[in-house]
């Protein structure tokens, strides 16, 4: 009996294609049809009410009031974030996306279902220690390790029609279907990767892959859901092995630390060696200059004296000899021994002499010694002789 449908909606549909502006049209046609139906005799409704056949006037007013209420039940409001899906006798007719006041043919002809499309819904997958099925967050990686992953899926709708009609959902947000898709997707993605990748560098990539896969599944089931975001909120090795894992992380730090220490050592040693090399270089330069300068000085001195010597060799030679001997004798302790006169064994208390000289360096005896040595030639016998005597006495 589907021919019935166009009969009812045919005239309206033709005029209705333009949308809201045709409301009046629809209204009029509906009124006509209704009246024809109710009136049975097909008498034009409006004029009849004007005629007012006595007691029927009140009833007509009530009927009109009811009619207005009935028509008014088709008015609905669509929020900016919502879409309204209109069904006529249960058959999908259109999705209203325009926000604001709208009207559809009243019950039982058309009905509306308003769905929040843009609202971001979110759900968590992998709540740790979930009572029902053990640890929901544990999953196996490709290298058969176990890790715990928690993720958050955010989604909204991209088709209110698909969302309403294509899947049997247990709640109005379709959490079930998203959760199933998310669980299978994350496990499949994790199962394809190795534990290190999942734990470290692969986190972002895994989020993306998972999102893609969830979307793929939801599209396949024509759910009208679009996944806007998948956050991998937590990836961890299970508690039982966490210590070992964190030790491995520590080991990575240790490796870096050791290398840094080595570098620090190198950075200390090499520049120091360069410094030392520079020092050696400078010292050598200094030595070279010093040696040459000294040589030049010495040579110059010698040349000059040699020039004078050439003029009067004998005198110069004697003078130099005596001068030198004088200086030598002045500055040293002398013991004069006449070996020819005294062939016996000679005992010299050298240590005592040394001690005396050491003391002699103190101011008091110095002048005396100096005075004594000052003129060795004029009074040669005095001091050395006395010492000699004493030495001989001691020796005996």
């Amino acid at each position, binding site marked *: 009996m589907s021919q019935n449908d166009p009969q009812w909606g045919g005239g309206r549909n033709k005029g209705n294609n333009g949308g809201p502006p045709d409301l009046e049209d629809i209204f009029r046609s509906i009124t006509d049809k209704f009246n024809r139906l109710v009136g049975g005799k097909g008498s034009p409704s409006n004029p009849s009410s004007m005629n007012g*056949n006595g007691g029927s006037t009140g009833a007509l007013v009530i009927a009109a009031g009811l009619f207005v209420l009935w028509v008014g039940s088709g008015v609905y409001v669509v929020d900016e974030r919502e879409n309204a899906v209109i069904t006529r006798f249960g058959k999908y007719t259109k999705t209203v996306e325009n926000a604001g006041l709208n009207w559809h043919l009243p019950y039982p002809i058309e009905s509306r279902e308003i769905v929040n499309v843009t609202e971001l819904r979110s759900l968590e997958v992998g709540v740790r220690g979930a009572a029902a099925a053990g640890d929901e967050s544990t999953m196996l990686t490709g290298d058969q390790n176990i890790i715990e992953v928690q993720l958050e899926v955010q989604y909204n709708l991209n088709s209110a029609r698909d969302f309403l009609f294509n899947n049997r959902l247990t709640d109005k947000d379709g959490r079930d279907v998203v959760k199933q898709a998310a669980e299978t997707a994350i496990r499949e993605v994790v199962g394809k990767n190795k534990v290190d990748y999942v734990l470290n560098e692969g986190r972002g990539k895994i989020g993306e892959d998972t999102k893609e896969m969830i979307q793929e599944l939801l599209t396949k089931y024509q759910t009208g859901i679009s996944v806007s975001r998948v956050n991998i909120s937590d990836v961890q090795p299970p508690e039982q092995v966490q210590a070992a894992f964190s030790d491995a992380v520590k080991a990575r730090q240790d490796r870096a630390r050791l290398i840094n220490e080595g570098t620090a*050592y190198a950075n200390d040693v090499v520049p120091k060696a360069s410094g030392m090399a520079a020092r050696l270089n400078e010292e050598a330069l200094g030595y070279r200059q010093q040696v040459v300068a000294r040589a030049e000085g010495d040579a110059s001195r010698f040349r000059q004296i040699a020039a004078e010597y050439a003029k009067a060799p004998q005198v110069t030679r004697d003078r130099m000899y005596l001068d030198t001997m004088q200086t030598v004798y002045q500055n040293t302790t002398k013991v004069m021994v006449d070996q020819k006169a005294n062939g016996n064994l000679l005992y010299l208390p050298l240590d005592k002499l040394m001690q005396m000289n050491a003391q002699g360096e103190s101011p008091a005896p110095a002048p005396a010694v100096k005075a004594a040595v000052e003129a060795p030639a004029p009074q040669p016998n005095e001091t050395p002789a006395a010492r000699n005597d004493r030495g001989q006495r001691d020796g005996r």
Partner: protein
Amino acid sequence: MNRIMPLLAALFLGLFIFSTTFFTLDQRKYAVVFQFSEAVRVIKDPGFHFKIPLLQEVRYFDKRIQTIDEEAPARIQTIEKMNVKADSFIKYQIVDVEKYYKAVGVDEKKAVDRLRNTVNNMLRDEFGKRTVQDVISGQRDEVMNLVRKVADADAARIGVQVLDVRIKRVELEDSTLNSVYERMQSERKAVASQLRAEGSAAAEKIKADADKQREVILADAYNQAQQMKGEGDAKAAAIYAESYGKNPEFYAFYKSLDAYKQSFAKKSDVMVIDPSADFFKYMKNPRAGSGK
């Protein structure tokens, strides 16, 4: 009033007949019209429909995709005789209502059980041919597809299409779990010690290299320094030779005197002198020089 009452009565009667004659079919459903329990018509188009009042009766079936989500994971053995817990879900949809009704009736639980059994058996078969590794990563898709295909073929007999079979979770049993944890720990230990050893090795290399560099730098520096000193010495020697060479005899004398002076410069130097030395010749005899 007299005119209103029959009017109302007629209206209600009309509505009653209307409601028994027509029915609406929701977008989400199929309708099957039964006449004396015989399915005479299957309606797939949603909308406004007619039936013969009193004789015919309409039953509705869900047109949407439905899910069978296992509550408890199934224990399945893999080829290594390892027990795993597999949790899966099935997405299906009724496509042939007539067949479906004949096979299942109105109680969808029968259909669910049938699908579930088929899928579970298939999973068991497929897991039994594969290792845990394959089931988890390598051939997961393959297993799912195979199972879906078989389940779909089977379900077609009851007018149902299996859209998807997904393995949600594959978990190891608690007993295996512990050995896995132990293995993971040992793996980490290996990694950790390797990292540390790498660190020491690298550090040692860097240090050794630094030491080598130091030695090289210092040796080079020594080399250069010695060369420079040598240059200095050589130049000095040349200067000495050039100037002293003019009068070697006098130089010997001059240098000797200098050396005497330098050698006997301290009071602690004790000289034992023989008065017969040339130096003292005047001490003995003031006229010694003239005799000469």
